[in-house]
């Protein structure tokens, strides 16, 4: 593996490990708020027990997960120094705000939630719990604004003197439609994860014939909140699909394994076997109109396929080369007004020209064949995206079915009557994590070959560090995170088995 692949793998591994802890924190924090609201409204002690028990599991996950994301920030300085310099002016602000949200707002209210039961009134503690949920969700908002900018870089311009992307309109960065769609889709997925967690563990209690009243109440909350969240994930995922259809057409084409442009109204491929060599998808099963409605919100707009988009990339590379040559001229003579004007006119495609850097260093002398090769490099890994997306969507539909059935059983007061249902709920436990990780694979693997779409190819963002350093630190991360995960599982399992009425839960601080 070369330095670029190793650096990408390291970032991907740390991000995927980090996101094992995050969705449960997002989901359980809101569920705790709901349960405590019911407690405050009804005054019934069982609801307080619910908050305390699920709060303990939330606390274990929070303690194990906290600071696992900080290692990604370590990597910006060592492995991604060129990236950090090039876009740090834009990327740094939301990242810093995310840090403040996570460490101040979230951490403060975590402390109040756990240690202020006897010091605050019921209402005050309830407010602290909801502010904990709000802080958790807000810190996700800022990191997703940063990530959304990598997918759709708005509100910034290139400054040839500082060689950086600089913010021109922070509100545009903040209200980036890709970031907003990504945020609501991601936190909804977290709510589904929290709901499945509560549902599955409660189902286990019912299967074991213990803590029935506690488990049924927990399942009722999880079923209703989970159903709303699972439906939201689909609706908001559709919004993500639309924003990607507008701004990341190649990602949509790769997800669909759509080699040629799909005429309006575009069909959606439910199943198929993508063939990379032949640029065909075999045994396609298509749903008419569906892709057109998702990606364009219309029935009269074609959806461009990979071949057409590669053709557009070729034109963008040629255009970007004009900007690149102007930049080279400015390097020699910073006062060349004509070069500055040419750069301004073509800077939008400068990133496309930089794709040629993977092929030859003196890109201004690139041949047509090399431009075609660079344009072809804009195609992400089609089979990985195709299958990851379908598996994620399939799991999303399963969650809706499971929560809808749970809700119906809850309304009928028959949650404990049907053991196959309880087993299905229990066995669903790992699935929301798989769906969430697949979602990140689609989002980030589908962004390749760009670190910032259309602005900076991934290979150019990597520092000139050593492969030994990256390999050893990657190994260190894998060992460190695996140990955390083992302890997380061990502690969660231990306190789930002890259950909500274990005597040691009464040992107050």
């Amino acid at each position, binding site marked *: 593996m070369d330095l670029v692949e190793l650096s990408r793998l390291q970032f991907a591994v740390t991000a995927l490990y980090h996101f094992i802890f995050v969705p449960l924190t997002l989901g359980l924090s809101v569920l705790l708020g709901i349960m405590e609201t019911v407690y405050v409204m009804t005054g019934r002690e069982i609801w307080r027990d619910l908050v*305390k028990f699920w*709060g*303990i599991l939330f*606390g*274990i996950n929070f*303690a*194990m997960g*906290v*600071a696992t994301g*900080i*290692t990604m920030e*370590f*990597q910006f*300085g*060592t492995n991604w*120094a*060129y990236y*950090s*310099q*090039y876009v740090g002016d834009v990327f740094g602000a939301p990242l810093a705000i995310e840090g403040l949200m996570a460490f101040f707002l979230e951490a403060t209210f975590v402390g109040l939630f*756990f*240690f202020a*039961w006897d010091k605050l009134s019921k209402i005050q503690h309830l407010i602290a719990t909801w502010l904990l949920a709000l802080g958790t969700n807000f810190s996700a908002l800022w990191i997703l604004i940063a990530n959304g900018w990598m997918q759709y870089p708005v509100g910034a311009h290139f400054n040839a*003197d*500082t*060689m*950086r992307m600089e913010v021109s309109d922070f509100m545009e960065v903040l209200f980036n439609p890709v970031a907003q769609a990504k945020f609501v889709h991601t936190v909804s997925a977290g709510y589904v994860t929290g709901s499945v967690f509560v549902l599955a563990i409660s189902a286990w209690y019912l299967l074991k014939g213990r803590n029935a009243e506690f488990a049924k109440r927990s399942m009722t909350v999880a079923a209703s909140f989970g159903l709303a969240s699972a439906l939201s994930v689909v609706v908001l995922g559709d919004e993500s699909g639309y924003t990607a259809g507008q701004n990341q057409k190649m990602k949509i084409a790769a997800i669909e394994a759509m080699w040629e442009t799909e005429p309006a109204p575009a069909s959606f491929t439910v199943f198929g076997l993508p063939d990379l060599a032949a640029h065909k998808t075999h045994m396609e099963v298509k749903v008419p109109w569906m892709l057109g409605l998702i990606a364009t919100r219309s029935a009269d707009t074609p959806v461009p396929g990979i071949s057409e988009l590669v053709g557009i990339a070729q034109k963008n590379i040629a255009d970007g080369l004009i900007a*690149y040559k102007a*930049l*080279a001229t400015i*390097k020699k003579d910073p006062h060349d007004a004509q070069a500055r004007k040419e750069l301004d006119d073509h800077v939008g495609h400068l990133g496309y020209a*930089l794709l040629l*850097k993977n092929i030859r*260093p*003196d890109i201004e002398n690139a041949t047509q064949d090399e431009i075609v090769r660079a344009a072809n490099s804009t195609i992400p890994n089609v089979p990985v995206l195709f299958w990851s997306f379908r598996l994620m969507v399939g799991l999303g539909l399963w969650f809706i079915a499971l929560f809808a059935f749970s809700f119906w059983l809850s309304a009928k007061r028959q949650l404990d009557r049907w053991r196959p249902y309880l087993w299905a709920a229990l066995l669903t436990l790992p699935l929301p994590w798989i769906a969430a990780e697949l979602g990140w694979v689609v989002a980030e693997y589908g962004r390749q070959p760009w670190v910032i779409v259309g602005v900076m190819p991934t290979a*150019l963002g990597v*520092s*000139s*560090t050593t492969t030994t*350093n990256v390999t*050893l*630190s990657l190994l*260190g*991360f894998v060992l*460190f995170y695996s*140990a*955390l995960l083992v*302890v997380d599982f061990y*502690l969660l399992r231990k*306190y789930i088995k002890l259950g909500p009425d*274990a005597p*040691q*839960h009464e*040992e*107050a*601080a």
Partner: protein
Amino acid sequence: MFPVLLRREIILMLALKAALLTLLYFLFFSPAHRVTVTPDSLRAHLVGP
């Protein structure tokens, strides 16, 4: 709210975690490991020397 045993386990884990993170930081990510990038070095990286 936290059981005493769990509190001890979590404190121990957090201390170990902080130690391991600090170790990883000093071994691989301290300022000595960082690559200094200036506008000129970035210009050379993108446009050439």
